[in-house]
């Protein structure tokens, strides 16, 4: 029932994927980061007071006509090329006709049977850590090639706010308020081919696909891809087929999936729900479902049993697009290094493992580590500091890694100071704390707090002698051959020097004084 939030019957996930084979597909909409809208010169920027970014064209006023943005088309071709698609030599926009108050013309200018880009693919690799949750992981990372059916360009709709109801959702509302600022913003729709053979990993593959796609789009510079602002929206299709039956099941389309985690949860839930339906001898209804963030369930939206007839026909107000092969090649040659290639290259250059690279990417630290290495740090050290100390501090304060008040250059300097013996790890953590607190650069913090490792042999020797004198019994043990006991004396020296001694050197000096080498 529309609007009902009562959970359906479910079959456990493990059971469901034993008896059924999932098939997933994803439809992702990306708002392009162009300056202006697709068919007019109004700003495409997010926000603005209601109905202040509109003109006769995006309002669809009688007599208005669309003129397409060259930049939006270029961005679309860029996306298609990065997804290994073929770019159409000739294609048209089409009208998709249906009535809805957020659509000023009651048709959307989109593309139908002549999309700009077709037949590509995106490789998605799941590392062991991601596979573990689904019982995989033993055999190493798994790569899935997700086929891309099409990439096309269309205009976005306005935005409605539903008033008077209890939940702010459409059901139960008394009336709605419509803002057309968003109407006409260029939207690229990316549709995958059905993704087969994922088995139990289906939710993880869906998650990873959206993440890879997001990173790719960001690298291409065509969108700011913020799922929370709606510039990246994904719908996910799920169907089940009884194992060995050879028949594909009926699919449902789940909307309102607003984060990567939600993509995964939605697929997971749909598998459990549909398994229960099929187990019960019922039919899965072909429909659109709504995902609920708080509960992780999907509920029935509108029925797709009676498929909408959009009465598509070629847009008569627009002339065909015929991107020249020269233009396409020019766009291709301007593509930046794509994320997958970049990650592979950096992994090679840095000599890190696949797992370590995944950890870096999941922490959103790839750029930071790269910049720290460029500033002179060894990759392993750069990784260590960003993923351990700095990640912890970011977590503690609820900040993003990138917004911590320390630069890659600063981190590289700290690494250098440790490598040269000026700092040890413990002192280095204190230096970082000082930098984050705004006390200055690493060198300034070292100077101000007096945190340099004591390297003056004379001072060290005096501290060592004092420790030996203070612990005669321990000293005797060492003299007697128990070298391991030196640890206690090292500890005493470190305490006396407030941690600013080089522990290894202290150990050397103790042993030199108390044993015959």
């Amino acid at each position: 029932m529309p609007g009902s939030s009562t959970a359906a019957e479910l079959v456990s996930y493990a059971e469901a994927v034993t008896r059924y084979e999932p098939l997933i597909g994803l439809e992702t909409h990306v708002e392009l980061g162009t300056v202006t809208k697709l068919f007019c010169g109004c700003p495409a920027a997010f926000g603005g007071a209601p109905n202040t970014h509109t003109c006769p064209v995006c309002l669809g006023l009688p007599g208005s006509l669309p003129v397409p943005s060259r930049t939006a088309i270029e961005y679309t071709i860029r996306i298609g090329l990065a997804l290994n698609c073929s770019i159409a030599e000739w294609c048209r926009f089409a009208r998709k006709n249906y009535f809805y108050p957020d659509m000023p013309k009651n048709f959307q200018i989109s593309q139908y049977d002549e999309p700009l880009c077709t037949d590509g693919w995106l490789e998605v690799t799941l590392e062991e850590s991601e596979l573990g949750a689904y019982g995989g992981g033993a055999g190493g990372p798994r790569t899935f090639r997700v086929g891309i059916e099409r990439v096309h360009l269309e205009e976005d709709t306005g935005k409605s706010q539903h008033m008077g109801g209890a939940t702010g959702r459409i059901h139960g509302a008394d009336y709605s308020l419509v803002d057309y600022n968003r109407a006409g913003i260029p939207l690229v729709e990316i549709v995958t081919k059905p993704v087969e053979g994922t088995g139990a990993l289906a939710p993880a593959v869906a998650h990873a696909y959206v993440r890879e796609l997001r990173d790719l789009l960001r690298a291409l510079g065509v969108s700011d891809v913020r799922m929370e602002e709606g510039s990246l929206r994904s719908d996910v299709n799920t169907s089940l087929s009884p194992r060995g039956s050879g028949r594909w099941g009926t699919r449902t389309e789940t909307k309102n999936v607003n984060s990567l985690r939600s993509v995964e949860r939605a697929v997971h839930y749909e598998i459990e729900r549909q398994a229960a339906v099929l187990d019960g001898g019922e039919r899965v209804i072909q429909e659109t479902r709504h995902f609920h963030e708080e509960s992780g369930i999907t509920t029935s939206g509108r029925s797709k049993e009676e498929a909408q007839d959009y009465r598509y026909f070629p847009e008569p107000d627009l002339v065909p697009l015929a991107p020249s092969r020269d233009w396409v090649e020019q766009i291709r040659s301007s593509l930046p290094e794509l994320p997958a290639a970049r990650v592979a290259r950096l992994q090679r250059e840095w000599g890190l493992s696949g797992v370590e690279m995944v950890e870096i990417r999941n922490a959103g630290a790839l750029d930071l580590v790269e910049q720290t290495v460029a500033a002179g740090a060894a990759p392993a050290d750069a990784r260590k500091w960003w993923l351990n100390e700095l990640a912890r501090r970011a977590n503690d304060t609820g900040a993003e890694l990138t917004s911590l008040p320390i630069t890659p250059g600063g981190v590289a300097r700290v690494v250098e100071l440790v490598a040269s013996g000026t700092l040890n790890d413990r002192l280095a953590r204190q230096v970082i704390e000082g930098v984050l607190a705004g006390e200055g650069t690493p060198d300034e913090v070292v100077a101000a707090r007096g945190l340099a490792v004591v390297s003056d042999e004379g001072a060290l020797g005096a501290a060592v002698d004092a420790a030996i004198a203070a612990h005669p019994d321990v000293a005797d043990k060492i003299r007697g051959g128990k070298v391991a006991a030196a640890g206690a004396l090292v500890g005493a020296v470190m305490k006396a020097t407030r941690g600013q001694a080089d522990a290894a050197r202290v150990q050397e000096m103790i042993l030199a004084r108390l044993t015959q080498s």
Partner: protein
Amino acid sequence: MPIARDDVAHLARLSRLALGEEELDHLAAQLDVIIAAVAKVQEVAADGIPPTSHAVPLVNVFREDVLVECLSADAVLSQAPAVEQQRFRVPRILAED
């Protein structure tokens, strides 16, 4: 093949026209005649003939990604049947279409 009255009622719903019963009957009869007349196009042998959507063959007409002045919210809303919070107030929408 004559068009059924139910089909005409369906067309009216699709087109958002709240036709009265008598009007529906009248229009159904007229549509029937018109559809039979326009069906004459099916007599033309057109295998392999490409359809024409634009009489004059232009391609690749674009505009540059440059801002143009918008209408003021006042100009946009001044003719609206109902306005609230600087937005178009519309009656309750049933589920998404």
